[in-house]
């Protein structure tokens, strides 16, 4: 009986102490910062665990001896096959270059790239004639490209003349001579 009464008194003491502690709660400042800090720590820990799992899963084969050896062997075979194949092809291409002979391109070139020639150039009149009246996209692109090339070459030539005063002077003299001849005629 005595023991029971002692236990009751101790539990009463404990309850009283906890009540006192609850009532004298510390003042918490910056609770949001603490919450954020805790959440960040949780996030980082989860991320680290996840990444560890993915890499471990992806490269799990490195711990299996025969798979590792097999994949390394396959890689070596692929590299060796590539090197051998490319060197054979290069050798054959080099041999082809030695096989090259001068062929008269006047006729042996054969058919034009564009099956029906778009233009017929009459060298006597110096005029182009357009066959069929329409141009395909490919023909238009070719025409555009040749015009652009011509313009680039022309600009380069002008620049070359401008940069060289002697050449410029020489050409001006030649042009003036030509003009004089025209006037005389």
């Amino acid at each position, binding site marked *: 009986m005595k023991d029971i009464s002692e236990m009751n008194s101790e539990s009463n003491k404990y309850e009283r102490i906890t009540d006192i502690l609850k009532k004298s709660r510390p003042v918490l400042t910056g609770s949001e910062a603490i919450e954020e800090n805790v959440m960040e720590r949780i996030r980082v820990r989860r991320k680290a665990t996840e990444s560890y799992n993915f*890499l471990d899963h992806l*490269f799990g*084969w*490195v*711990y299996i001896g025969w798979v*590792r050896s097999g*994949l*390394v062997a*396959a*890689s070596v075979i*692929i*590299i060796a*096959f*590539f090197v051998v*194949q*490319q060197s054979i*092809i290069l050798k*054959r*291409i080099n*041999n*082809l270059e030695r*096989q*090259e*002979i*001068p*062929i*008269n*391109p*006047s*006729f*042996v*070139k*054969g*058919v034009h790239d564009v*099956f*029906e*020639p778009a233009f*017929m*150039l*009459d*060298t*006597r009149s110096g005029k182009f004639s357009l*066959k069929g009246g329409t141009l395909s996209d490919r023909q238009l692109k070719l025409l555009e490209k040749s015009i652009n090339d011509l313009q680039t070459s022309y600009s380069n030539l002008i620049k070359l003349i401008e940069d060289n005063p002697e050449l410029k002077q020489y050409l001006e003299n030649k042009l003036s001579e030509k003009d004089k001849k025209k006037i005389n005629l």
Partner: protein
Amino acid sequence: MNIKPLKVAVIIILALITSCDEPETVVTDIVHTDGSVTRRIEMKNTENKFNIHKIQVPFDSTWIVKDSLEFNKKGDTTWVKRAEKLYHNFDEINMSYRSDSGCNKTVSRRSEFIKRFRWFNTEYRFAEIIEREFKHGYPVSDFLNKEELQYFYSPNTVMDKLVNSPDSLKYKAIKDTISSKTDRWTYKSAMAEWIGDFSTLTGDKATGDMTFDALKAREGELVKISMQNSNHFDSLWSNGIILKEFIGESNAIKYKTEADSAITLVSKKLFVDFHGYSVRIIMPGKLIGTNGLMDSTNVLLWPVKSEYFLTRPYEMWAESKEPNKWAWIVSGIFLLFVLAGIIFKSIKKG
């Protein structure tokens, strides 16, 4: 079968035909990756004369034909006939060769296309083959050296250019050497063919000295007799003098029919009715091998002349490759994966 005068006559006749109304012809095979072939024929002539029956390759109404008149820098006119047809595969080309009714129908021709998967690349091989006329002849390469062979297989334009080049003396000498060597090659092959055909015709009837092996062993003698009497070969043969000298009087009388039939067969094969042309092949992807002539822009060309397929099939082949980009990517990713795995393991171990 007087080879030398006949050869001269045939050359003159062919030259006359060419200069008169036979157009200069180039046949271009544009090979596609799926094995289909666009065949283009380009014929040039100084006159507007194009006889359909004189086209050197199979031709019919399914071809798309374009005629044009072109001017050169000097203002000369050239009549050009262009024709184009898509063959879905090489079998279609072979079928057209089999049913050919053109001027070269007597010659056996075929084409081949092979596509090989080689992981990093896909390789393509296309060939135009003309079967040989003689079964028992010798290859011309046994008679000509490398330089002479190069000249022998050159187009006429190249031959003319070389003969008129600063090295003209050298090339004229090569030309003369080739002429005498090819004469010997022609005689030797013709006589070998005669022995083969004669043995086929005599069959089991021939015994002892008249068997194929016995005659073949004495082939050199026949060549010598024929070449010594080249100027009067026809009359000496028809009088049976050459035959008597070679196989003896009694055998010459006994086997005269077979011997004459055999020489007629050989003559037909030797002077096959064939109209020459040029072949071009344009391959898909990068060119990696060919036995054709090539210029700096990888234009391939083969002149086609009857002597090229007299004793051996004349094969015009080209090989090319195209990279398999997906295979490069897959291989690269695989190698990176294995390398990354090895690095990962060493990091973990460390």
